Protein backbone atom coordinates (compact mmCIF):
# COMPACT_ATOMS: atom_id res chain seq x y z
CA UNK A 1 0.00 0.00 0.00
CA UNK A 2 1.31 3.43 -0.88
CA UNK A 3 0.13 6.67 0.64
CA UNK A 4 -1.51 8.98 -1.88
CA UNK A 5 -2.62 11.75 0.45
CA UNK A 6 -1.11 12.67 3.74
CA UNK A 7 -1.69 15.38 6.28
CA UNK A 8 0.56 16.16 9.16
CA UNK A 9 -0.57 18.08 12.22
CA UNK A 10 -3.00 20.05 10.07
CA UNK A 11 -4.52 22.92 11.97
CA UNK A 12 -6.90 25.74 11.13
CA UNK A 13 -7.95 28.49 13.42
CA UNK A 14 -10.57 31.18 12.74
CA UNK A 15 -10.01 33.83 15.35
CA UNK A 16 -10.57 32.01 18.61
CA UNK A 17 -12.21 29.04 17.04
CA UNK A 18 -10.02 26.04 16.29
CA UNK A 19 -11.88 24.29 13.49
CA UNK A 20 -9.26 21.68 12.67
CA UNK A 21 -6.92 20.77 15.44
CA UNK A 22 -3.79 18.89 14.46
CA UNK A 23 -5.09 16.22 12.15
CA UNK A 24 -2.54 13.72 10.86
CA UNK A 25 -3.84 11.20 8.37
CA UNK A 26 -2.38 9.06 5.65
CA UNK A 27 -4.76 7.86 2.95
CA UNK A 28 -3.80 4.68 1.18
CA UNK A 29 -4.02 4.03 -2.49
CA UNK A 30 -7.24 2.44 -3.73
CA UNK A 31 -8.92 2.66 -0.36
CA UNK A 32 -12.33 4.08 0.32
CA UNK A 33 -12.00 6.11 3.49
CA UNK A 34 -15.03 7.64 5.11
CA UNK A 35 -14.72 10.65 7.32
CA UNK A 36 -17.64 10.98 9.68
CA UNK A 37 -18.45 13.15 12.62
CA UNK A 38 -21.22 15.32 13.95
CA UNK A 39 -22.01 18.65 12.37
CA UNK A 40 -19.44 21.21 13.27
CA UNK A 41 -16.75 18.60 13.75
CA UNK A 42 -14.60 20.28 11.14
CA UNK A 43 -15.14 18.02 8.15
CA UNK A 44 -15.84 20.78 5.67
CA UNK A 45 -12.95 22.90 6.93
CA UNK A 46 -10.71 19.85 6.67
CA UNK A 47 -11.79 19.42 3.06
CA UNK A 48 -11.18 23.06 2.32
CA UNK A 49 -7.67 22.71 3.70
CA UNK A 50 -6.97 19.66 1.58
CA UNK A 51 -8.21 21.30 -1.60
CA UNK A 52 -6.43 24.61 -1.09
CA UNK A 53 -9.57 26.72 -0.64
CA UNK A 54 -8.30 27.60 2.83
CA UNK A 55 -4.70 27.98 3.88
CA UNK A 56 -3.88 26.02 7.03
CA UNK A 57 -2.70 27.83 10.14
CA UNK A 58 -0.12 25.09 10.59
CA UNK A 59 0.73 21.66 9.28
CA UNK A 60 1.23 20.20 5.83
CA UNK A 61 -0.70 18.46 3.09
CA UNK A 62 1.10 16.11 0.71
CA UNK A 63 -0.19 14.48 -2.43
CA UNK A 64 1.23 11.64 -4.43
CA UNK A 65 3.10 12.85 -7.46
CA UNK A 66 5.33 11.16 -9.98
CA UNK A 67 8.23 11.00 -7.56
CA UNK A 68 6.65 10.32 -4.24
CA UNK A 69 4.69 12.75 -2.13
CA UNK A 70 4.60 16.42 -3.09
CA UNK A 71 3.91 19.18 -0.61
CA UNK A 72 0.83 21.11 -1.73
CA UNK A 73 0.21 22.99 1.50
CA UNK A 74 -1.19 26.40 0.76
CA UNK A 75 -1.26 25.88 -3.02
CA UNK A 76 -4.28 27.40 -4.77
CA UNK A 77 -7.21 25.07 -5.59
CA UNK A 78 -6.42 24.75 -9.26
CA UNK A 79 -2.91 23.55 -8.53
CA UNK A 80 -4.12 21.06 -5.97
CA UNK A 81 -6.60 19.80 -8.53
CA UNK A 82 -3.88 19.44 -11.11
CA UNK A 83 -1.72 17.62 -8.61
CA UNK A 84 -4.41 14.95 -8.66
CA UNK A 85 -7.00 15.81 -6.04
CA UNK A 86 -10.57 16.10 -7.22
CA UNK A 87 -13.56 17.05 -5.15
CA UNK A 88 -17.30 17.01 -5.27
CA UNK A 89 -19.25 19.47 -3.20
CA UNK A 90 -21.80 18.92 -0.48
CA UNK A 91 -23.93 21.74 -1.86
CA UNK A 92 -24.12 21.03 -5.54
CA UNK A 93 -21.65 23.18 -7.41
CA UNK A 94 -21.78 22.57 -11.12
CA UNK A 95 -21.97 24.84 -14.17
CA UNK A 96 -25.71 25.36 -14.04
CA UNK A 97 -26.14 27.26 -17.28
CA UNK A 98 -24.40 24.63 -19.40
CA UNK A 99 -25.49 21.18 -20.54
CA UNK A 100 -24.36 18.01 -18.83
CA UNK A 101 -22.05 17.19 -21.71
CA UNK A 102 -20.51 20.65 -21.65
CA UNK A 103 -19.94 20.29 -17.92
CA UNK A 104 -18.06 17.07 -18.32
CA UNK A 105 -16.21 18.34 -21.36
CA UNK A 106 -14.92 21.34 -19.45
CA UNK A 107 -13.48 19.08 -16.79
CA UNK A 108 -11.90 17.00 -19.52
CA UNK A 109 -10.49 20.13 -21.20
CA UNK A 110 -8.98 21.16 -17.93
CA UNK A 111 -7.30 17.80 -17.48
CA UNK A 112 -6.13 17.81 -21.05
CA UNK A 113 -4.40 21.13 -20.88
CA UNK A 114 -6.20 22.37 -24.00
CA UNK A 115 -7.57 25.33 -22.08
CA UNK A 116 -5.59 27.75 -24.16
CA UNK A 117 -6.75 26.30 -27.47
CA UNK A 118 -9.05 29.00 -28.69
CA UNK A 119 -9.45 28.19 -32.32
CA UNK A 120 -10.53 24.59 -32.61
CA UNK A 121 -14.07 23.67 -31.75
CA UNK A 122 -14.56 22.47 -28.22
CA UNK A 123 -16.43 19.41 -29.46
CA UNK A 124 -14.13 18.58 -32.34
CA UNK A 125 -11.58 16.34 -30.65
CA UNK A 126 -12.76 12.73 -31.16
CA UNK A 127 -10.61 11.35 -28.35
CA UNK A 128 -12.02 13.86 -25.95
CA UNK A 129 -15.58 13.25 -27.10
CA UNK A 130 -15.04 9.54 -26.63
CA UNK A 131 -13.78 10.14 -23.11
CA UNK A 132 -16.65 12.44 -22.32
CA UNK A 133 -19.05 9.86 -23.68
CA UNK A 134 -17.45 7.20 -21.55
CA UNK A 135 -17.76 9.26 -18.40
CA UNK A 136 -21.38 10.01 -19.21
CA UNK A 137 -22.05 6.31 -19.74
CA UNK A 138 -20.22 5.38 -16.59
CA UNK A 139 -22.30 7.80 -14.57
CA UNK A 140 -25.51 7.01 -16.40
CA UNK A 141 -25.95 10.56 -17.69
CA UNK A 142 -25.96 9.79 -21.41
CA UNK A 143 -29.70 10.22 -21.77
CA UNK A 144 -29.69 13.71 -20.34
CA UNK A 145 -26.36 14.77 -21.83
CA UNK A 146 -27.83 17.66 -23.79
CA UNK A 147 -30.01 19.00 -20.98
CA UNK A 148 -28.94 22.26 -19.36
CA UNK A 149 -28.02 21.51 -15.77
CA UNK A 150 -30.38 24.03 -14.27
CA UNK A 151 -33.23 21.82 -15.48
CA UNK A 152 -32.01 18.66 -13.74
CA UNK A 153 -33.38 17.04 -10.64
CA UNK A 154 -31.38 17.10 -7.45
CA UNK A 155 -30.20 13.53 -7.85
CA UNK A 156 -29.11 14.14 -11.44
CA UNK A 157 -27.15 17.20 -10.37
CA UNK A 158 -25.38 15.19 -7.71
CA UNK A 159 -24.42 12.70 -10.36
CA UNK A 160 -23.06 15.47 -12.59
CA UNK A 161 -21.06 16.62 -9.60
CA UNK A 162 -19.45 13.20 -9.44
CA UNK A 163 -18.97 13.03 -13.18
CA UNK A 164 -17.07 16.32 -13.01
CA UNK A 165 -14.86 15.01 -10.26
CA UNK A 166 -14.27 11.88 -12.26
CA UNK A 167 -13.47 13.60 -15.53
CA UNK A 168 -10.21 15.12 -14.38
CA UNK A 169 -8.93 11.61 -13.70
CA UNK A 170 -7.58 12.29 -10.25
CA UNK A 171 -5.45 10.22 -7.91
CA UNK A 172 -7.80 10.94 -5.04
CA UNK A 173 -11.50 11.76 -5.02
CA UNK A 174 -12.81 13.82 -2.16
CA UNK A 175 -16.56 13.46 -1.92
CA UNK A 176 -18.49 15.67 0.42
CA UNK A 177 -21.75 13.86 1.17
CA UNK A 178 -22.21 12.40 -2.29
CA UNK A 179 -25.67 11.00 -1.42
CA UNK A 180 -27.04 14.09 0.29
CA UNK A 181 -30.70 14.49 -0.58
CA UNK A 182 -30.88 11.44 -2.83
CA UNK A 183 -33.67 8.94 -2.74
CA UNK A 184 -32.85 5.31 -1.93
CA UNK A 185 -32.60 4.24 -5.54
CA UNK A 186 -30.29 7.11 -6.41
CA UNK A 187 -28.24 6.43 -3.31
CA UNK A 188 -27.82 2.80 -4.27
CA UNK A 189 -26.71 3.86 -7.71
CA UNK A 190 -24.13 6.30 -6.40
CA UNK A 191 -22.80 3.77 -3.93
CA UNK A 192 -22.39 1.15 -6.60
CA UNK A 193 -20.83 3.74 -8.87
CA UNK A 194 -18.23 4.57 -6.25
CA UNK A 195 -17.55 0.93 -5.60
CA UNK A 196 -17.29 0.20 -9.28
CA UNK A 197 -14.82 2.99 -9.85
CA UNK A 198 -12.84 1.87 -6.87
CA UNK A 199 -12.59 -1.66 -8.18
CA UNK A 200 -12.19 -0.99 -11.87
CA UNK A 201 -9.76 1.88 -11.90
CA UNK A 202 -8.36 1.53 -8.40
CA UNK A 203 -9.56 5.02 -7.60
CA UNK A 204 -8.94 6.30 -4.09
CA UNK A 205 -11.93 7.85 -2.34
CA UNK A 206 -12.23 10.02 0.72
CA UNK A 207 -15.92 10.36 1.52
CA UNK A 208 -17.86 12.22 4.15
CA UNK A 209 -21.31 10.87 4.68
CA UNK A 210 -24.22 11.10 7.04
CA UNK A 211 -25.89 7.96 5.85
CA UNK A 212 -24.44 5.24 8.05
CA UNK A 213 -25.64 2.50 5.73
CA UNK A 214 -23.60 3.99 2.97
CA UNK A 215 -20.64 4.40 5.25
CA UNK A 216 -20.79 0.84 6.44
CA UNK A 217 -21.36 -0.38 2.94
CA UNK A 218 -18.49 1.18 1.10
CA UNK A 219 -15.75 2.02 3.59
CA UNK A 220 -12.48 0.21 3.82
CA UNK A 221 -11.67 2.52 6.66
CA UNK A 222 -13.49 5.05 8.78
CA UNK A 223 -12.06 8.15 10.41
CA UNK A 224 -14.17 9.93 13.02
CA UNK A 225 -13.62 13.65 13.51
CA UNK A 226 -14.92 15.43 16.59
CA UNK A 227 -14.10 18.97 17.64
CA UNK A 228 -11.60 19.22 14.82
CA UNK A 229 -9.53 16.25 15.90
CA UNK A 230 -9.40 12.56 15.04
CA UNK A 231 -11.49 10.68 17.55
CA UNK A 232 -11.23 7.24 16.03
CA UNK A 233 -9.61 5.66 13.01
CA UNK A 234 -9.91 2.08 11.79
CA UNK A 235 -11.98 -0.51 9.98
CA UNK A 236 -15.76 -0.07 9.99
CA UNK A 237 -16.24 -2.77 12.61
CA UNK A 238 -13.67 -1.27 14.93
CA UNK A 239 -14.88 2.27 14.63
CA UNK A 240 -18.60 1.69 14.69
CA UNK A 241 -18.31 -0.28 17.86
CA UNK A 242 -16.19 2.33 19.58
CA UNK A 243 -18.03 3.78 22.56
CA UNK A 244 -16.56 7.22 22.18
CA UNK A 245 -17.97 7.36 18.66
CA UNK A 246 -21.41 6.36 19.81
CA UNK A 247 -21.27 9.09 22.40
CA UNK A 248 -20.11 11.73 20.01
CA UNK A 249 -23.01 10.95 17.74
CA UNK A 250 -25.69 10.59 20.33
CA UNK A 251 -24.91 13.63 22.41
CA UNK A 252 -27.05 13.81 25.50
CA UNK A 253 -29.13 10.88 24.34
CA UNK A 254 -26.41 8.63 25.58
CA UNK A 255 -26.94 9.60 29.15
Amino acid sequence: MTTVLETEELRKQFGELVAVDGVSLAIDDADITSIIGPNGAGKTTFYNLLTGVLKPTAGTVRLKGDDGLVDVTGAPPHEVAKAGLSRSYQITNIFEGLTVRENVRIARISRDGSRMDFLSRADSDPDMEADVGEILTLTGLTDIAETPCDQLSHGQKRTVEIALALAIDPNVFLMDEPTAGMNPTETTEIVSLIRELNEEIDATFVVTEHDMDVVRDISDRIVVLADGAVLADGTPTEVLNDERVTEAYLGSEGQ
Partner: protein
Amino acid sequence: MSGDEDGTRTGLAAFGSAAVTDGWTRERISLLVAIGLVAMAFAPSFQVYLFTEFLIIALFALGFNLLYGYTGLLSFGHGLFFAGGSYGVAIVLRDLGPVIADVVGSGIAPVVTFALAMVIAVMIVVVVAIPVGWLSVRLEEIYFALITLAFGMLGFSFILQNPGGITNGTDGILVLLGSVEIGGMDVRLGDRQLYYFLTLGIVASATYTIWRIVNSPFGAVCKAIRESPDRAAALGIDVTHHRWMTFILSALFVGIAGALMAGLASVASPYHAHWTNSATAVVATVIGGATFFAGPIVGAFIYLYVRWGISRFPALEAHWELFFGALLIAVVLYFKIGAVGGLLLLRERLFGAETSTDGGGETE
Protein backbone atom coordinates in the same frame (compact mmCIF):
# COMPACT_ATOMS: atom_id res chain seq x y z
CA MET B 1 -14.45 39.84 -49.96
CA SER B 2 -13.32 39.33 -53.53
CA GLY B 3 -10.27 37.53 -54.89
CA ASP B 4 -9.08 33.90 -55.01
CA GLU B 5 -12.00 32.84 -57.13
CA ASP B 6 -11.67 29.39 -58.67
CA GLY B 7 -11.76 27.07 -55.69
CA THR B 8 -14.33 29.07 -53.93
CA ARG B 9 -16.57 29.44 -56.94
CA THR B 10 -17.58 25.77 -57.02
CA GLY B 11 -17.96 25.86 -53.25
CA LEU B 12 -20.13 28.89 -53.53
CA ALA B 13 -22.22 27.29 -56.26
CA ALA B 14 -22.86 24.24 -54.09
CA PHE B 15 -23.58 26.47 -51.16
CA GLY B 16 -25.90 28.54 -53.26
CA SER B 17 -27.87 25.61 -54.59
CA ALA B 18 -28.20 24.17 -51.10
CA ALA B 19 -29.42 27.55 -49.98
CA VAL B 20 -32.05 27.73 -52.66
CA THR B 21 -33.33 24.18 -52.48
CA ASP B 22 -33.50 23.45 -48.77
CA GLY B 23 -35.93 26.06 -47.53
CA TRP B 24 -35.00 28.14 -44.47
CA THR B 25 -31.65 26.48 -43.96
CA ARG B 26 -28.64 28.03 -42.38
CA GLU B 27 -27.09 28.31 -45.86
CA ARG B 28 -30.04 30.19 -47.16
CA ILE B 29 -30.02 32.66 -44.31
CA SER B 30 -26.25 33.12 -44.59
CA LEU B 31 -26.59 33.76 -48.28
CA LEU B 32 -29.26 36.36 -47.68
CA VAL B 33 -27.13 38.04 -45.03
CA ALA B 34 -24.11 38.03 -47.36
CA ILE B 35 -26.14 39.50 -50.22
CA GLY B 36 -27.56 42.08 -47.85
CA LEU B 37 -24.13 43.07 -46.60
CA VAL B 38 -22.78 43.51 -50.11
CA ALA B 39 -25.90 45.37 -51.21
CA MET B 40 -25.43 47.69 -48.25
CA ALA B 41 -22.42 49.17 -50.02
CA PHE B 42 -24.76 50.56 -52.65
CA ALA B 43 -27.15 52.12 -50.20
CA PRO B 44 -27.25 55.93 -49.94
CA SER B 45 -23.82 57.16 -49.04
CA PHE B 46 -24.65 58.22 -45.52
CA GLN B 47 -26.24 54.87 -44.78
CA VAL B 48 -22.98 53.25 -45.81
CA TYR B 49 -21.20 55.48 -43.32
CA LEU B 50 -23.69 54.72 -40.56
CA PHE B 51 -23.58 51.02 -41.24
CA THR B 52 -19.79 51.06 -41.16
CA GLU B 53 -19.94 52.79 -37.80
CA PHE B 54 -22.45 50.19 -36.63
CA LEU B 55 -20.08 47.38 -37.62
CA ILE B 56 -17.30 49.02 -35.62
CA ILE B 57 -19.44 49.53 -32.53
CA ALA B 58 -20.69 45.95 -32.90
CA LEU B 59 -17.11 44.69 -32.84
CA PHE B 60 -16.40 46.93 -29.86
CA ALA B 61 -19.33 45.41 -27.99
CA LEU B 62 -18.54 41.85 -29.09
CA GLY B 63 -14.99 42.21 -27.82
CA PHE B 64 -16.27 43.63 -24.56
CA ASN B 65 -18.80 40.81 -24.22
CA LEU B 66 -16.12 38.16 -24.57
CA LEU B 67 -15.09 39.30 -21.12
CA TYR B 68 -18.50 40.18 -19.73
CA GLY B 69 -20.98 37.71 -21.17
CA TYR B 70 -18.62 34.77 -21.44
CA THR B 71 -16.34 35.18 -18.46
CA GLY B 72 -18.54 37.21 -16.15
CA LEU B 73 -16.31 40.27 -15.74
CA LEU B 74 -17.86 43.69 -16.33
CA SER B 75 -15.30 46.16 -17.59
CA PHE B 76 -15.99 49.86 -17.44
CA GLY B 77 -12.67 50.76 -19.01
CA HIS B 78 -12.60 49.15 -22.43
CA GLY B 79 -12.56 52.61 -23.95
CA LEU B 80 -8.87 52.50 -23.05
CA PHE B 81 -8.29 49.78 -25.64
CA PHE B 82 -10.58 51.44 -28.15
CA ALA B 83 -8.44 54.55 -27.79
CA GLY B 84 -5.31 52.39 -27.95
CA GLY B 85 -6.44 51.20 -31.37
CA SER B 86 -7.42 54.60 -32.70
CA TYR B 87 -4.31 56.36 -31.38
CA GLY B 88 -2.09 53.52 -32.56
CA VAL B 89 -3.33 53.98 -36.11
CA ALA B 90 -3.21 57.77 -35.90
CA ILE B 91 0.32 57.91 -34.53
CA VAL B 92 1.72 55.43 -37.03
CA LEU B 93 0.09 57.26 -39.92
CA ARG B 94 1.37 60.60 -38.68
CA ASP B 95 4.90 59.66 -37.67
CA LEU B 96 5.76 56.66 -39.79
CA GLY B 97 3.75 57.48 -42.91
CA PRO B 98 6.57 59.40 -44.60
CA VAL B 99 9.17 56.81 -43.58
CA ILE B 100 7.11 53.99 -45.05
CA ALA B 101 6.48 55.99 -48.19
CA ASP B 102 10.25 56.26 -48.59
CA VAL B 103 10.70 52.53 -48.25
CA VAL B 104 7.88 51.17 -50.40
CA GLY B 105 7.48 54.06 -52.78
CA SER B 106 4.59 56.46 -52.73
CA GLY B 107 2.33 54.39 -55.01
CA ILE B 108 1.07 51.83 -52.56
CA ALA B 109 2.37 53.52 -49.44
CA PRO B 110 -1.07 54.37 -47.98
CA VAL B 111 -2.18 50.76 -48.13
CA VAL B 112 1.01 49.45 -46.57
CA THR B 113 0.95 52.19 -43.98
CA PHE B 114 -2.61 51.53 -42.99
CA ALA B 115 -2.09 47.79 -42.78
CA LEU B 116 1.03 48.30 -40.71
CA ALA B 117 -0.75 50.88 -38.58
CA MET B 118 -3.54 48.39 -37.81
CA VAL B 119 -1.02 45.75 -36.80
CA ILE B 120 1.00 48.13 -34.65
CA ALA B 121 -2.14 49.56 -33.08
CA VAL B 122 -3.33 46.12 -32.07
CA MET B 123 0.13 45.33 -30.72
CA ILE B 124 0.06 48.50 -28.64
CA VAL B 125 -3.34 47.53 -27.28
CA VAL B 126 -2.08 44.09 -26.31
CA VAL B 127 0.99 45.57 -24.66
CA VAL B 128 -1.26 47.85 -22.60
CA ALA B 129 -3.78 45.10 -21.87
CA ILE B 130 -1.18 42.71 -20.47
CA PRO B 131 -0.30 44.67 -17.31
CA VAL B 132 -3.73 46.31 -16.94
CA GLY B 133 -5.42 42.93 -17.24
CA TRP B 134 -2.96 41.25 -14.91
CA LEU B 135 -3.75 43.76 -12.20
CA SER B 136 -7.49 43.96 -12.87
CA VAL B 137 -8.39 40.26 -12.93
CA ARG B 138 -7.29 39.97 -9.32
CA LEU B 139 -10.62 41.57 -8.51
CA GLU B 140 -14.17 40.47 -9.18
CA GLU B 141 -17.63 41.88 -9.71
CA ILE B 142 -18.13 45.53 -8.86
CA TYR B 143 -14.49 45.91 -7.87
CA PHE B 144 -13.39 44.74 -11.27
CA ALA B 145 -15.75 47.25 -12.88
CA LEU B 146 -14.32 50.04 -10.75
CA ILE B 147 -10.66 49.24 -11.30
CA THR B 148 -11.15 49.05 -15.05
CA LEU B 149 -12.98 52.38 -14.86
CA ALA B 150 -9.96 53.81 -13.07
CA PHE B 151 -7.49 52.42 -15.60
CA GLY B 152 -9.58 53.80 -18.43
CA MET B 153 -9.60 57.24 -16.88
CA LEU B 154 -5.87 57.04 -16.20
CA GLY B 155 -5.46 56.38 -19.91
CA PHE B 156 -7.73 59.32 -20.67
CA SER B 157 -5.67 61.68 -18.53
CA PHE B 158 -2.48 60.28 -20.04
CA ILE B 159 -3.75 61.18 -23.51
CA LEU B 160 -4.79 64.66 -22.36
CA GLN B 161 -1.37 65.30 -20.87
CA ASN B 162 0.16 64.81 -24.30
CA PRO B 163 3.37 63.19 -23.05
CA GLY B 164 6.24 63.91 -25.39
CA GLY B 165 3.79 65.48 -27.81
CA ILE B 166 2.65 62.10 -29.12
CA THR B 167 -1.08 62.29 -28.40
CA ASN B 168 -1.69 65.94 -29.25
CA GLY B 169 -3.71 66.53 -26.09
CA THR B 170 -7.38 67.40 -26.20
CA ASP B 171 -7.48 67.97 -29.94
CA GLY B 172 -6.70 64.39 -30.77
CA ILE B 173 -4.91 63.38 -33.94
CA LEU B 174 -6.24 63.72 -37.45
CA VAL B 175 -6.14 60.55 -39.48
CA LEU B 176 -5.67 60.91 -43.22
CA LEU B 177 -5.67 57.64 -45.07
CA GLY B 178 -4.50 58.96 -48.42
CA SER B 179 -5.09 57.38 -51.81
CA VAL B 180 -3.45 54.84 -54.04
CA GLU B 181 -3.10 54.86 -57.78
CA ILE B 182 -4.43 51.72 -59.36
CA GLY B 183 -4.24 51.58 -63.14
CA GLY B 184 -4.22 55.34 -63.43
CA MET B 185 -7.23 55.61 -61.14
CA ASP B 186 -6.93 57.45 -57.91
CA VAL B 187 -8.52 55.26 -55.26
CA ARG B 188 -9.06 56.88 -51.92
CA LEU B 189 -8.64 54.50 -49.02
CA GLY B 190 -11.14 56.51 -47.04
CA ASP B 191 -13.74 56.18 -49.80
CA ARG B 192 -17.08 55.22 -48.23
CA GLN B 193 -17.61 52.01 -50.14
CA LEU B 194 -14.01 50.93 -50.02
CA TYR B 195 -13.76 51.60 -46.32
CA TYR B 196 -17.06 49.83 -45.79
CA PHE B 197 -15.78 46.70 -47.48
CA LEU B 198 -12.53 46.93 -45.57
CA THR B 199 -14.42 47.26 -42.28
CA LEU B 200 -16.87 44.56 -43.25
CA GLY B 201 -14.02 42.19 -44.05
CA ILE B 202 -12.19 42.87 -40.81
CA VAL B 203 -15.28 42.90 -38.61
CA ALA B 204 -16.66 39.75 -40.22
CA SER B 205 -13.35 37.93 -39.73
CA ALA B 206 -13.07 39.18 -36.17
CA THR B 207 -16.65 38.18 -35.43
CA TYR B 208 -16.03 34.74 -36.86
CA THR B 209 -12.88 34.47 -34.76
CA ILE B 210 -14.76 35.48 -31.61
CA TRP B 211 -17.42 32.95 -32.49
CA ARG B 212 -14.76 30.30 -32.81
CA ILE B 213 -13.25 31.36 -29.51
CA VAL B 214 -16.49 31.11 -27.56
CA ASN B 215 -17.06 27.65 -29.01
CA SER B 216 -13.49 26.51 -28.46
CA PRO B 217 -12.08 24.68 -25.46
CA PHE B 218 -10.86 28.08 -24.30
CA GLY B 219 -14.38 29.49 -24.55
CA ALA B 220 -15.86 26.49 -22.78
CA VAL B 221 -13.55 27.22 -19.86
CA CYS B 222 -14.61 30.88 -19.94
CA LYS B 223 -18.23 29.87 -19.59
CA ALA B 224 -17.34 27.52 -16.77
CA ILE B 225 -15.67 30.40 -14.94
CA ARG B 226 -18.70 32.57 -15.50
CA GLU B 227 -20.96 29.88 -14.03
CA SER B 228 -18.83 28.97 -11.01
CA PRO B 229 -15.27 30.19 -10.55
CA ASP B 230 -14.52 28.03 -7.52
CA ARG B 231 -15.83 24.91 -9.23
CA ALA B 232 -13.64 25.67 -12.21
CA ALA B 233 -10.64 26.05 -9.91
CA ALA B 234 -11.44 22.72 -8.29
CA LEU B 235 -11.20 21.15 -11.74
CA GLY B 236 -7.67 22.43 -12.11
CA ILE B 237 -8.39 25.62 -14.02
CA ASP B 238 -6.27 28.61 -13.07
CA VAL B 239 -9.18 31.02 -13.00
CA THR B 240 -7.12 34.18 -12.61
CA HIS B 241 -4.80 33.28 -15.44
CA HIS B 242 -7.66 32.34 -17.72
CA ARG B 243 -9.45 35.60 -16.99
CA TRP B 244 -6.26 37.44 -17.76
CA MET B 245 -5.94 35.74 -21.14
CA THR B 246 -9.59 36.51 -21.91
CA PHE B 247 -9.02 40.11 -20.89
CA ILE B 248 -6.16 40.41 -23.38
CA LEU B 249 -8.14 38.79 -26.18
CA SER B 250 -11.09 41.01 -25.43
CA ALA B 251 -8.89 44.11 -25.47
CA LEU B 252 -7.38 42.99 -28.77
CA PHE B 253 -10.74 42.92 -30.55
CA VAL B 254 -11.75 46.22 -29.00
CA GLY B 255 -8.43 47.60 -30.23
CA ILE B 256 -9.27 46.52 -33.78
CA ALA B 257 -12.59 48.34 -33.48
CA GLY B 258 -10.82 51.46 -32.25
CA ALA B 259 -8.32 51.30 -35.11
CA LEU B 260 -11.15 51.05 -37.64
CA MET B 261 -12.92 53.98 -35.99
CA ALA B 262 -9.87 56.19 -36.42
CA GLY B 263 -9.98 55.53 -40.15
CA LEU B 264 -13.73 56.10 -40.41
CA ALA B 265 -14.02 59.27 -38.33
CA SER B 266 -10.58 60.46 -39.45
CA VAL B 267 -9.64 61.32 -35.92
CA ALA B 268 -8.28 59.69 -32.80
CA SER B 269 -10.06 61.52 -30.00
CA PRO B 270 -9.22 61.45 -26.29
CA TYR B 271 -12.89 60.76 -25.63
CA HIS B 272 -12.35 57.31 -27.05
CA ALA B 273 -10.70 56.54 -23.71
CA HIS B 274 -13.29 58.31 -21.59
CA TRP B 275 -15.59 56.18 -19.47
CA THR B 276 -18.60 57.38 -21.43
CA ASN B 277 -17.18 55.63 -24.47
CA SER B 278 -16.56 52.49 -22.41
CA ALA B 279 -20.21 52.73 -21.43
CA THR B 280 -21.19 52.53 -25.10
CA ALA B 281 -20.09 48.90 -25.23
CA VAL B 282 -21.81 48.13 -21.95
CA VAL B 283 -25.06 49.76 -23.00
CA ALA B 284 -25.06 48.15 -26.45
CA THR B 285 -24.45 44.75 -24.87
CA VAL B 286 -27.17 45.15 -22.27
CA ILE B 287 -29.66 46.35 -24.89
CA GLY B 288 -28.93 43.38 -27.10
CA GLY B 289 -28.53 40.74 -24.41
CA ALA B 290 -25.21 39.59 -23.02
CA THR B 291 -26.06 35.90 -22.98
CA PHE B 292 -26.45 35.69 -26.73
CA PHE B 293 -23.59 35.72 -29.15
CA ALA B 294 -25.45 38.11 -31.40
CA GLY B 295 -26.65 40.26 -28.49
CA PRO B 296 -23.94 42.92 -28.73
CA ILE B 297 -24.40 43.15 -32.51
CA VAL B 298 -28.14 43.71 -32.21
CA GLY B 299 -27.53 46.07 -29.31
CA ALA B 300 -25.03 48.13 -31.28
CA PHE B 301 -27.52 48.30 -34.14
CA ILE B 302 -30.29 49.55 -31.89
CA TYR B 303 -27.96 51.94 -30.09
CA LEU B 304 -26.71 53.63 -33.21
CA TYR B 305 -29.85 53.57 -35.31
CA VAL B 306 -32.09 54.84 -32.53
CA ARG B 307 -29.69 57.72 -32.02
CA TRP B 308 -29.76 58.32 -35.77
CA GLY B 309 -33.55 58.03 -35.90
CA ILE B 310 -33.83 60.62 -33.15
CA SER B 311 -31.54 62.97 -35.06
CA ARG B 312 -33.91 62.88 -38.03
CA PHE B 313 -36.62 64.61 -36.01
CA PRO B 314 -35.73 68.12 -34.84
CA ALA B 315 -38.11 68.02 -31.87
CA LEU B 316 -36.54 64.79 -30.68
CA GLU B 317 -33.00 65.83 -31.59
CA ALA B 318 -33.31 68.92 -29.45
CA HIS B 319 -33.93 66.70 -26.42
CA TRP B 320 -32.39 63.45 -27.60
CA GLU B 321 -30.89 62.64 -24.21
CA LEU B 322 -34.38 62.51 -22.75
CA PHE B 323 -35.67 60.01 -25.28
CA PHE B 324 -32.49 57.99 -25.27
CA GLY B 325 -32.50 57.76 -21.48
CA ALA B 326 -36.15 56.73 -21.44
CA LEU B 327 -35.45 54.11 -24.09
CA LEU B 328 -32.57 52.65 -22.07
CA ILE B 329 -34.76 52.34 -19.03
CA ALA B 330 -37.61 50.83 -20.99
CA VAL B 331 -35.37 48.21 -22.59
CA VAL B 332 -33.87 47.20 -19.26
CA LEU B 333 -37.25 47.05 -17.53
CA TYR B 334 -39.23 45.29 -20.21
CA PHE B 335 -36.67 43.10 -21.97
CA LYS B 336 -35.18 41.05 -19.20
CA ILE B 337 -32.68 39.29 -21.41
CA GLY B 338 -32.08 41.99 -23.95
CA ALA B 339 -33.52 42.61 -27.39
CA VAL B 340 -32.29 39.28 -28.76
CA GLY B 341 -33.98 37.50 -25.87
CA GLY B 342 -37.12 39.46 -26.63
CA LEU B 343 -36.95 38.47 -30.31
CA LEU B 344 -36.47 34.82 -29.47
CA LEU B 345 -39.40 34.92 -27.09
CA LEU B 346 -41.44 36.49 -29.86
CA ARG B 347 -40.39 33.75 -32.25
CA GLU B 348 -41.38 31.22 -29.63
CA ARG B 349 -44.80 32.81 -29.33
CA LEU B 350 -45.29 32.98 -33.08
CA PHE B 351 -43.82 29.70 -34.20
CA GLY B 352 -43.65 27.73 -30.99
CA ALA B 353 -39.93 27.15 -31.39
CA GLU B 354 -37.98 26.15 -28.31
CA THR B 355 -35.82 28.84 -26.81
CA SER B 356 -33.35 28.58 -24.01
CA THR B 357 -32.07 31.63 -22.29
CA ASP B 358 -28.43 30.83 -22.71
CA GLY B 359 -26.54 30.03 -25.82
CA GLY B 360 -29.48 30.25 -28.16
CA GLY B 361 -27.37 32.08 -30.65
CA GLU B 362 -23.99 30.80 -29.72
CA THR B 363 -24.36 27.12 -30.41
CA GLU B 364 -26.73 27.17 -33.30
